[in-house]
């Protein structure tokens, strides 16, 4: 059995409006983040993966299952949507319990599973209250409980951390990590780039319905040739270091760090730079640390999609 989520040449058009176009992805287990501005196609992609909408063209397989067979698909998939609406009149517990009853579980088993999921999202106290009276964060948590309650192997989460307070946020991320460590697929869409950075094993960058990059963030960064790599070097004599590195042709820019104790350089060839730095260090400049300064999601996002779209 294939353990990947595979999208082959998937396109979705809403009439003449483009949702996503020619998406080819093969997503391994772990935490994968869909990153992109509003309207880039993140939710469309998630809805396609869960069969809520059908592709205009292409094929989607979720661990070898088609998306047009919900009776099989949702035994292994949990989807926490962004739709902030619930069946009327249900309490938080009833919402999760009723969902589990649709699986055909006996009431005792459904009850146990529902409580387990509710405990996981820390909502036991409020489980007896009507969902209509919940705060935004509580509604988000009960949706998470619904998506998690049947222990899915694939968890698709549309902006799952929206509205959560910092403590619950951290706990939720821990849950995602633990599931990913167990070999689950966690697909997350998010606008919050530093969070994506922290939790993701890989990112999928979307812009205007196209996948512009995918993979581990450092790998994606190294592919971006038109933007020189930024490296921050902490050392005792940054001025001297600057004069020495500037003798190399691949160095585009060298700038003193604002605190005066480091040098920020831009290079078109990081490998050559690291060799050069070794030689300089041998000549007596004490280098405290060397760290890439722009191989994070923020920078990659900015380079590929545009600074005007970056949301922090």
């Amino acid at each position, binding site marked *: 059995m294939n353990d990947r989520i595979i999208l082959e040449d998937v396109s979705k058009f809403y009439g003449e409006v483009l949702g996503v176009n020619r998406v080819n992805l093969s997503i391994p287990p772990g935490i994968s983040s869909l990153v992109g501005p509003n309207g880039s196609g993140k939710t469309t992609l998630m809805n396609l993966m869960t069969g809520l909408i059908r592709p205009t063209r292409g094929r989607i397989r979720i661990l070898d299952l088609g998306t047009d067979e*919900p*009776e099989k698909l*949702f035994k292994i998939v949990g989807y926490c949507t962004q739709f902030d609406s619930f069946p009327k009149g249900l309490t938080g517990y009833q919402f999760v319990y009723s969902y589990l009853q*649709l*699986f055909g579980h006996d009431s005792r088993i459904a009850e146990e599973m529902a409580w387990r999921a509710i405990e996981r999202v820390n909502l036991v106290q409020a489980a007896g209250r009507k969902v209509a009276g919940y705060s935004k964060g509580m509604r988000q948590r009960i949706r998470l409980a619904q998506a998690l309650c049947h222990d899915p192997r694939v968890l698709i989460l549309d902006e799952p951390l929206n509205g959560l307070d910092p403590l619950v946020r951290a706990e939720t991320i821990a849950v995602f990590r633990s599931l990913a460590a167990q070999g689950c697929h966690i697909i997350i869409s998010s606008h919050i780039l530093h969070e994506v950075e922290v939790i993701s094993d890989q990112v999928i960058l979307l812009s205007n319905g196209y996948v512009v990059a995918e993979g581990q963030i450092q790998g994606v960064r190294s592919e971006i040739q038109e933007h020189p790599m930024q490296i921050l070097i902490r050392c005792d004599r940054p001025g001297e270091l600057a004069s020495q590195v500037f003798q190399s042709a691949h160095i585009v820019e060298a700038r003193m760090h604002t605190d005066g104790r480091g040098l920020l350089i831009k290079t078109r060839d990081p490998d050559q730079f690291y060799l050069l730095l070794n030689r300089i260090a041998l000549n007596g400049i004490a280098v405290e640390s060397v760290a890439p300064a722009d191989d994070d999601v923020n920078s990659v996002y900015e380079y590929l999609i545009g600074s005007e779209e970056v949301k922090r």
Partner: protein
Amino acid sequence: MNRLWWKQIRAVIRLEMKKTFFAKRGIWIYLLALAPLVLFAGHAIETARHRQALVRLISQNEKPLAEQDFAAITPGMAQEEVVERLGNPPVRNSWKARRRTGPDSIDVFMREQYHYGAGQSEFFVEIEHGKVAAIHRRQEGCDFGQDSIIFASVFQFFYLRLAIFFGCLGIFMNLFRGELLDKSLHFYFLAPIRREIVMIGKYLAGLIAATIIFTTSTALQMVALGWHFDPNALSTYLYQNHGLAHATAYLGVTALACLGYGSFFLAAGLLFRNPIWPAAAILLWEGLNPFLPSLLKKLSVIYYLKSLCPVEIPVGPGVPPVFALLVSNADPIAAPLAVFGVITVALAILLASSYQVRRMEINYTTE
């Protein structure tokens, strides 16, 4: 159908029942269902009130009277002779009457009315110039024959064609359309359940709700209709004169109407955003049924339901031909075939709907 499907259908029904029965936007369905009950209950109350008034009138007669006693009272008979035969009337009204006797002359005279009660009737003896001018009889109460025709007319023309029709529209079109508007349909579509099973569960929930609401109303209407009759006469009508069979038939037709129209409106809810157009089209189709060729007639619900209605509405000589065609059933079919026909039409529509629901996409932004 396997065990899992039954469990899933039961789970869907449980979720839907509360919504269907207690939806605020469904109050008008109850009002529509209970409208004929108000009519029949009003009729029953009025008839009972009249009966009590007649009993009171009879008790006030000066001597016991039978309806035959009034056969002897003829126009021209002297006022004294009337009183001699019938006794002093319990109610006596008098007023000044005017009658033109020539181009310039008007006769002003006293007119009296003697009001008696006897048997099941009230009698009004009109006295003019000391002699009987006329005698009127007003029979109190109704007979089962007349009431059953009134019930059949209300049932066929209002209850079936409008109340159940629009009630089913309100219940069944909301099963999918309502949830699309509320943006909550994904709850079902994200569960490991065949969409056809969701559809069947929702349809059965709607059917249970519609059947309970409308058959209860039908039953209450019949109770209201029979309430003012003498218990012995009612018992005879029910057990010896097809009354019970008629009541069963009406309840059955009500349930079948919910089944048939329910399937139409469930399909319409899957296909159309605006309920007005499919409702108008189906209403027109059902209304045109008597004028359609024989084959097309069979593609409607009302055709089968009319054949199952136990009482035929008589068409008088003065009734316009178009109306007569609506009333009469020119091409009736046997009851078992009619039941089979409604169920077949409903199943065919549900089968077509299952393809639609399988292909359905959730895109709330376009709703």
